[in-house]
């Protein structure tokens, strides 16, 4: 039994490797992406400086200019890290019919794609997230804590990746019924960037929108790891709260996405592609 378990892990890593190589293959996209990040940071910097300059107080909605800047840059870095074209790739597989070949592998499609996405996200983490983090760390005058919070943040980031993947898979299911990959991917990106607080921090949302968002999985993807990283009170109960929130969403999203996916595949296998 022990032998089998080990090789299953090895199998997963071999899938991760496909993602890493795949992501590294697009060298051009890589540097453009990095440049895009820097432009984004600059734009966010001037935009929010103007907003804060127009405000009579230094603290708006409980956040200082520095807080807002750090939050937005890092939220966007997480968005870019997790945005590895999952929906687009799956939709493409469905439309081209290549999905049939993956369904004929002795590994569940979920694992094939998740393994691959993990690899791509690792590459994005190193080449996109870490540079953003370093830039904002020095730009903000080294106010981010460096300590145990980094460990919790990393755990949070891993769970965020799982939740994000499941969420993307749910969206990809629509592709079985519609015929546009690009549209679905764009729609998804708009919803995610807005509701996750990657453009405007959730603290700035009106109350009714805050309530709606609190019932959605996005805070578990973006807000939870960021609060663990940036939060002032480093009590373990705070970490516990956010981790539990993430575990909760992870279980829900895993269940929902697998259910939806298996149902969609069944529709394909009964009515043909």
């Amino acid at each position: 039994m022990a032998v089998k378990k080990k090789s299953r892990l090895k199998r997963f890593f071999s899938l991760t490797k496909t993602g890493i190589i795949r992501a590294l293959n697009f060298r051009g996209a890589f540097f453009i992406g990095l440049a895009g990040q820097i432009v984004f940071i600059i734009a966010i910097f001037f935009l929010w400086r103007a907003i804060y300059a127009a405000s009579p107080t230094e603290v708006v909605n409980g956040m200082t200019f520095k807080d807002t800047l750090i939050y937005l840059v890092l939220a966007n870095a997480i968005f870019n890290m997790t945005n590895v074209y999952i929906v687009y790739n799956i939709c493409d597989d469905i439309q081209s019919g290549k999905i049939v070949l993956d369904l004929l592998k002795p590994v569940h499609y979920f694992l094939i794609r998740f393994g691959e996405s993990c690899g791509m996200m690792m590459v994005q983490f190193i080449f996109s997230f870490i540079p953003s983090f370093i830039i904002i760390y020095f730009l903000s005058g080294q106010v981010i804590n460096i300590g145990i919070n980094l460990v919790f943040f990393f755990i949070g980031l891993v769970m965020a990746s799982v939740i994000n993947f499941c969420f993307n898979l749910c969206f990809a299911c629509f592709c079985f019924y519609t015929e546009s990959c690009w549209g679905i991917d764009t729609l998804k990106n708009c919803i995610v960037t807005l509701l996750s607080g990657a453009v405007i921090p959730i603290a700035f949302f009106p109350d009714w929108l805050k309530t709606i968002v609190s019932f959605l999985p996005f805070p578990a993807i973006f807000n939870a790891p960021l609060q663990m990283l940036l939060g002032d009170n480093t009590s373990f109960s705070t970490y516990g709260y956010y981790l539990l929130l993430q575990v909760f969403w992870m279980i829900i999203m895993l269940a929902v996405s697998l259910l939806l996916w298996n149902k969609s595949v069944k529709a394909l296998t009964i009515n043909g592609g």
Partner: protein
Amino acid sequence: MDPIIKLCNVSKEFKVLNRHQGILGSVKDLFSRDYSIVNAVNNVNVEIMPGEVVGYLGPNGAGKSTTIKMMTGVLKPTSGEVLINGVDPFKSREKLAENIGVVFGQRTQLWWALPLIESFKVLKEMYFIDDDTYNTNLKLFNELVGVEKLYSKLVRQMSLGQRTLCDILAAFLHDPKVVFLDEPTIGLDVSMKAQIRELILTLNEKKNTTVILTTHDMGDVDALCKRIVIIDKGTQIYDDSIENLQGFFGKYRTLKLMISGEDYSDEEAMKKCAHDIEGIVKAEFPQAVSLTSAVDEHWIDLTINEEEAQLMKIMSFLNEKVKITDVKIQEISTENVIKGIYERRG
């Protein structure tokens, strides 16, 4: 010995939306409940023994791919029973996957962005192939097609022929019991086709793998299959050895004639001459109903079913009527027989 593939009264129906024309029609289609039922596969019965190479033939849209998809478990049959290696492929697709290999000629199961050897390594982990089997197979592949040269090549940079070759190797890598090849030689040049046929044949012999092959290239069939199954409009119309195929659909042979005094450069005149000859032969041998004539460069071809009229008799009869300068007799090819079957039913 038990059959490794067993299809018992298998049928598949699809629900198809009746689409309307134009923009208004397309809008209507969004809400339409106007479906019709299409019988893609109708009551198919096949049993295949381990180690057989079976050609699965039929014109475009005959239901070949649908049947293959049912055999691999990606489509659920509407009725009937499918058993591959003793299991129902639809119910236990992932379990069955370890025992089958698939090649779809126009798609690749390899990773586009990866060098070939990395794709093989991933497959090794996916199928839990042990080191011994993996190394032995790679060594064998290398002896057969010298695949080592391609190890570091990215799959997306390969030519279609190289890719197909590698796809076939990938399908055989985990020593599957059954391999499904869906048009493996599509779009390949003559020498690549020959190489791929040779490879399939050798792998089948060495590993006793059952191979199901669909193709439109009769060269594939002649080179690989001892047995063929023909399906048309979802119905199975033939299941027997390839030798019996010719007997089954009549003993056709082609008599090629060169007539003196004809202007060979004038195609119209040649056609008329062929037509005339067909006329006089049919007048003399009214039982030869399926006799056809054609023009092939300088030759006039008469295709004769020898069960209706003997070729020798027709030849001696014609020898009296027209001036024949040269003669050739041709056995009809599998291709022409199959063509005849498709056309007759169309």
